[in-house]
């Protein structure tokens, strides 16, 4: 029987703008975050395409050096503070966490709304900084350049400071929710791995972000009062600033990747209708990554004038943070063994995550080795590495997650053909853009260069073409998602035949999430015991039939 969209659900009841502005419903806050992060993603993505177009030829193409410096700072700062850190925890996480643990809402709904308005406040400061000329210091704000430049760095620092609190509020909310509001019978090892990943991410958000807050306060005071902690002209030490900054920023890269890993654990298992391989290993490795990520920040500073003995310690510890990620990749690959793999779009993104994240992870080992890092630090090799891990990792996982839970969030289906096509275009465009940058970096092309010596030109041209292809892929995605919102066909409660509390309620779910309190009857991935009929034939079946 053809699935239908229920009469009332969280999107249309209660009605009116005020009900959205003062909502305490975690699903609505999740949707508002989702709209904001997608806006900032497309905006910063556009900046990236402009930057790449500027780099077509050495010298001036579209803008001069100062404008270029402001553009890449904006691209970095918006992508990190306004998109990738809040994206999975605040958008998908807010929507899914209470549903996945059978709760009515997060532990502190008012704090959740406060985190949204703090996010909006921070974004306003960021946009003010953009309008008033933008900062030209790079997203790292290294002193003494950041304390001596006249560009509007202070408003960007204030934006990052405020956004930090939005991240802390979300993290705090999730820790208490997961500890206190789990469904009856749902022990820690019966939780979906997405919840484990969100828990580990929340731990990092809560432990690392305060140090960023104090760093930005000290940097603001350095710029205004010259307090002499970070500015060498006033007796301070720039390397100390780098320690303060990277103590937050390395765990921050795990705030970005861990929720992505949580989504991939869900996608690989649910799309192949097979029990996840090594549930405990994946859960413990999420937790392990969260702890070890606080010991390794010094590998960003091997050539910064840091003491050589500290560099050796940081390099040694860095190799231990790579092992849990490797274990996870092997577990995901083994989950495919003897599964019933559907190649719908979420699975396409999960597989491209496996490919790109593995490359990103392996190049991380290059950067961890001391002597090799001296050659490739602050070159395009590093740019390629973190794009492979952040875009190839977190963004692919986010896109897979959006496609997987889209029917649950909006109750409608998207166009499968165009979704698969854009996924393939994005995969090709991504590799064109960033694999060439590994080569550029190995040959010594430095980062943040407005112009470059002629011998790098051919690789830059190829990388820019890749960026355009990437842009095309995302354009197609925007089109079919908007089409799906307006004219999408109803998707029904469980289009993928997946196991999970969120699939046991309507799509889109009612405001109180569940009509009857769900109770745990089997494990989160028991595809060897439970067979759930699917209401949406995936493309591979249409082909097979």
């Amino acid at each position, binding site marked *: 029987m053809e699935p239908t969209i229920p009469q009332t659900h969280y999107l249309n009841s209660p009605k009116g703008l005020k009900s959205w502005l003062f909502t305490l419903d975690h699903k609505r806050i999740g949707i508002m975050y989702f709209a904001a992060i997608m806006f900032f993603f497309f905006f910063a993505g556009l900046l990236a395409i402009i930057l790449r177009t500027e780099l077509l030829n050495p010298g001036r193409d579209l803008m001069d050096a100062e404008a270029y410096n402001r553009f890449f700072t904006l691209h970095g700062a918006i992508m990190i503070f306004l998109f990738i850190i809040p994206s999975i925890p605040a958008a998908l996480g807010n929507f899914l966490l209470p549903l996945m643990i059978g*709760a*009515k*809402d997060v*532990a*502190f*709904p008012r*704090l959740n709304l406060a985190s949204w308005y703090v996010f909006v406040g921070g974004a306003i400061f960021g946009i003010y900084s953009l309008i008033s000329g933008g900062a030209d210091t790079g997203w790292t704000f290294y002193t003494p350049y950041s304390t001596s430049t006249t560009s509007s760095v202070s408003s960007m620092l204030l934006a990052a400071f405020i956004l930090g609190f939005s991240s*802390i509020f979300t*993290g*705090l*909310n999730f*820790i*208490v929710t997961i*500890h*206190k*509001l*789990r*469904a*009856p*019978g*749902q*022990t820690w090892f019966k939780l979906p791995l997405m919840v484990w990943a969100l828990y580990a991410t929340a731990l990092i958000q*809560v*432990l690392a*972000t*305060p*140090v960023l*807050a*104090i*760093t930005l*306060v*000290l940097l603001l*005071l*350095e710029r205004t*009062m*010259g*307090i*002499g*902690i970070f500015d060498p002209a*006033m*007796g*301070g030490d720039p390397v*100390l600033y780098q320690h*303060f900054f990277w103590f937050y920023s390395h765990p921050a890269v795990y705030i970005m990747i861990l929720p992505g890993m949580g989504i991939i654990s869900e996608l690989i298992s649910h799309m192949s209708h097979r029990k996840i391989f090594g549930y405990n290993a994946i859960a413990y490795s999420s937790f392990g990554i969260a702890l070890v990520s606080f010991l390794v920040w010094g590998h960003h500073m091997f050539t910064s004038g840091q003491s050589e003995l500290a560099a050796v310690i940081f390099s040694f510890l860095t190799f231990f943070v790579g092992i849990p990620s490797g274990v996870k990749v092997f577990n995901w690959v083994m989950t495919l063994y003897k599964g019933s793999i559907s190649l719908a779009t979420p699975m396409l993104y999960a597989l491209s995550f496996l490919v790109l994240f593995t490359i990103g992870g392996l190049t991380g080992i290059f950067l961890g080795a001391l002597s090799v890092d001296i050659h490739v630090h602050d070159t395009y090799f590093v740019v390629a590495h973190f794009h492979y891990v952040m875009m190839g990792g977190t963004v692919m996982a986010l896109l897979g997650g959006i496609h997987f839970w889209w029917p649950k969030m909006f109750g409608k289906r998207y166009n499968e053909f165009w979704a698969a096509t854009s996924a393939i275009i994005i995969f090709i465009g991504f590799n064109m853009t960033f694999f060439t940058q590994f080569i550029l970096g190995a040959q010594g092309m430095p980062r943040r260069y407005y112009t470059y010596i002629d011998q790098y030109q051919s690789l830059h041209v190829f990388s820019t073409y890749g960026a355009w292809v990437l842009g095309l892929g995302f354009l197609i995605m925007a089109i079919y998602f908007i089409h799906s919102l307006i004219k999408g066909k109803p998707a029904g409660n469980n289009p993928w035949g997946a196991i999970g509390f969120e699939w046991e309620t309507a799509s889109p779910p009612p405001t109180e999430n569940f009509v009857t*309190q769900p109770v745990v009857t089997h494990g989160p991935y028991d595809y060897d015991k439970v067979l759930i009929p699917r209401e949406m034939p995936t493309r591979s079946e249409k082909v097979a039939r």
Partner: protein
Amino acid sequence: MADHAKTHAPLDEHVAHHFTDAEQQRESSKLGMWVFLLTEVLFFGGLFCAYAIYRSWYPEMFHAAHKALDVKLGFINTLVLISSSVTMALAIRSMQLGNKRQTMYHLFATLIFAATFLVIKYFEYSHKFHLGQLPGKYYTYTGIEGSNPHVFFSIYFVMTGLHGLHVIGGMIAIIIMLVKTSRDRFNALYYNPIEVTGLYWHLVDLIWIFLFPLLYLVS
């Protein structure tokens, strides 16, 4: 494991709709506050790290500069804050016993101690402003030898200033608790907000317990 299996206690008006009972709500609010205190410890931790590094880089300057701080005032401030911690703890205890008047008395005493602390801080600050012992480039005092004495005062003002802001934040929270207690919003079974404010206040005192010896007693 949340405790749904229990018979549903009559949902009194204090329990929010998404909690199953008062106990779960109380534990959640305390867990939330403890996680917030974790962020506060790390927020101040950054300053303690800066203090430790600059003290090991400029030991004689720190020794000379700490003489500019008035140990007597610092000592009185420590006594004031510890007594405010005691009265805060007693306030929670008296609300646990359901004694509204005594709770308000203790909360008010805590407020007075906090205000005294800030007044003493005001005298110390104005004394330093007058002498020119100011942070960073505003430092004009010439009575301290050793290199970069302004760094000590930068760290001093940022640490005690931030701590002062947290004291003010605590006072606002206590005033809200006072108003709510006077309106009978709490009873012997529901006193989470006071308990949570108490936790925050004790941490503010705990941070000062470390600030006092590190800044005032550099021998």
